[in-house]
């Protein structure tokens, strides 16, 4: 029998999710954006591909994939719709990671496996009014009371919150211990005392719903603390590189979408009886977009590979996220200039890229804090 090598899983994941994006997402992307609500039907379609379990082992219903494959998948989804890619990333990573790592077998059966199947929506609650980058200032508290934890406080900017079935929530357990006094807790939506605000009216990613959470003496079982006492931030640091490189992949997807449309339009649009791509200033824009996208690609996937090799490349992941998200914003901006006035029309997708790219600047760390971290990692602080 002849030996012919199989294609790599990375090639097939890219090809398969590229087709999914072209066939299922792109034709509906504008409609989803304009509807301004969580498209459960699209969430269900993505669930059928097994995407939500890509990072998890088969023992919990996942596929046993790696970070590179996860990044390829979300990059392709982001090429079609940042909203769809964002809620998929939340379901695959932040919303379920702590439940997978530290949840009980019973919690896995009741919540994790259904989330991987797409039957339950997961969310992750970190940010507070006065605590985002500054996690030590988290004021939502969890205090033990008999066999329960009592949660009080509020969270804001919580992706998927209006539609989520359960939340992984960062709470302060000992205010004297600073970052070592923080832990994650699993809180289900129907728990008495949990209030979900109405969704925010946002500039972009309008098909991802975001809102506030308020906790008024929310009582949860003792086993709902995810992880050992005081290790919440430490456990968060374990996946911070993954969160950042994933955000770089999202950025790459949006940048490619803006570039693809710009390159096509430059060869279609004529002025002075020439297509505008024949003008050197347009060529410069295309060349810079293509070059920066290639650099983003190399940074993103080199970093993802480091993670897959067991490293925790916080500096490289921070660089990749910082660079790729800024490139996404530059590409969206250049696309609006190449499209001219048409980019100002809601009839064209370019305006959506221009609005959605701003989302990338905040999640996973702002460019400003990332530059601070990178400099610190370089020994200059």
């Amino acid at each position: 029998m002849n030996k012919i090598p199989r294609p790599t899983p990375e090639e097939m994941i890219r090809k398969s999710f590229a087709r999914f994006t072209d066939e299922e997402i792109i034709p509906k992307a504008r409609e989803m954006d304009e509807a301004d609500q969580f498209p459960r039907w699209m969430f269900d379609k993505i669930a059928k591909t097994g995407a939500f379990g890509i990072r998890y082992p088969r023992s919990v219903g996942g596929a046993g994939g790696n970070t590179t494959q996860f990044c390829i998948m979300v990059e392709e989804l982001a090429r079609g719709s940042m909203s769809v890619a964002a809620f998929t990333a939340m379901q695959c990573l932040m919303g379920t990671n702590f439940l997978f790592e530290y949840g009980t077998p019973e919690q896995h059966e009741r919540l994790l496996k259904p989330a991987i199947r797409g039957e339950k929506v997961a969310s992750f609650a970190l940010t507070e009014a006065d605590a985002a980058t500054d996690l030590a200032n988290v004021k939502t508290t969890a205090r033990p009371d008999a066999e329960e934890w009592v949660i009080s406080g509020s969270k804001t900017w919580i992706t998927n919150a209006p539609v989520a079935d359960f939340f992984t929530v960062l709470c302060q357990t000992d205010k004297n211990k600073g970052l070592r006094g923080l832990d994650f807790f699993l809180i289900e939506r129907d728990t008495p005392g949990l209030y979900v605000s109405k969704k925010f009216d946002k500039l972009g990613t309008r098909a991802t719903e975001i809102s506030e959470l308020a906790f008024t003496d929310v009582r949860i079982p003792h086993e709902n603390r995810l992880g050992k006492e005081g290790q919440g931030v430490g456990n968060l640091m374990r996946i911070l590189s993954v969160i950042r490189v994933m955000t770089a992949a999202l950025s790459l997807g949006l940048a490619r979408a803006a570039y693809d449309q710009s390159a096509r339009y430059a060869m279609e649009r004529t002025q002075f009886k020439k297509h505008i791509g024949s003008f050197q200033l347009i060529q410069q824009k295309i060349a810079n977009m293509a070059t920066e996208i290639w650099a983003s690609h190399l940074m993103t996937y080199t970093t993802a590979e480091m993670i897959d090799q067991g490293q925790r490349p916080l500096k490289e992941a921070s660089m990749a996220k910082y660079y790729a998200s800024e490139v996404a914003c530059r590409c969206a901006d250049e696309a609006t200039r190449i499209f001219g006035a048409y980019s100002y029309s809601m009839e064209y997708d370019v305006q959506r890229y221009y609005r959605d790219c701003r989302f990338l600047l905040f999640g996973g760390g702002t460019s400003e804090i990332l530059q601070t971290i990178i400099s610190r990692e370089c020994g200059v602080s």
Partner: protein
Amino acid sequence: MNIVVLVKQVPNTTDVKIDPKTGNLIREGVASIINPEDRHGLEAGLQIREKLGGTVTVISMGPPQAMETVCECLAMGADRGILLSDRAFAGADTWATSTALGMAVRKLGEFDLILAGRQAIDGDTAQIGPQVAEFLRIAQLTYVRRLDAQEGKVIAERALEDGCEHIEAPTPVLVTVLGALNKPRHPTVEGILAATSERSPVEVWNAADIGVKVQDVGLAGSLTHVVRTFTPKGARDTRRLEGSATVIAAELLEALRQKEIRLGE
């Protein structure tokens, strides 16, 4: 029900370039996909398996890179993949291809249903399905847009130029399908990771494996040879009529008369 699906890897574009010297398609630089109607054939096979049980085996003939197509079919849910790949198969016309595919099906043993797309987007012959059925001496239903399988028979709706035909056939039978039949599923992540592993159930068969003589397959076994492939010149003499409706109508009638085009009695 034991189902065999015939699939072909084709260039992902209808705008392929042709090598002016050889008359062959230039495939370099063009991404490859599963022939679209073959995906519908596979989807039909998977749905029938889900309803009646059994197995779905995919057979594809092509160069080594067609392994990707076979793996994609496994990722969608096929149980087993066979890639017919041998230099002896190269340059085959539809007759020689059907011979190889037919022999491969025979080697598989008992089957109930063979599914294939109506035609491939790179050749548009629509000959492979019918020829494989003839080779195997089984019934064939072509241009199928609705299909229901039951133990021992299939019930199909065939699209005809002037209507449709409802027809029932006992198994074994070969069915060629249209895109209207169903909406193919996307591969799953788990399916992709399993299909691309070295343990995935894909076999590569050569001419000796399926028991054919090399003179019966490939270019040597082809009854037809492409003499020349070219794009017909589509230059048309276009004349734009302007003015009021009455003026345009009069000019149009006069132009048609000059071309001696009769407008009825």
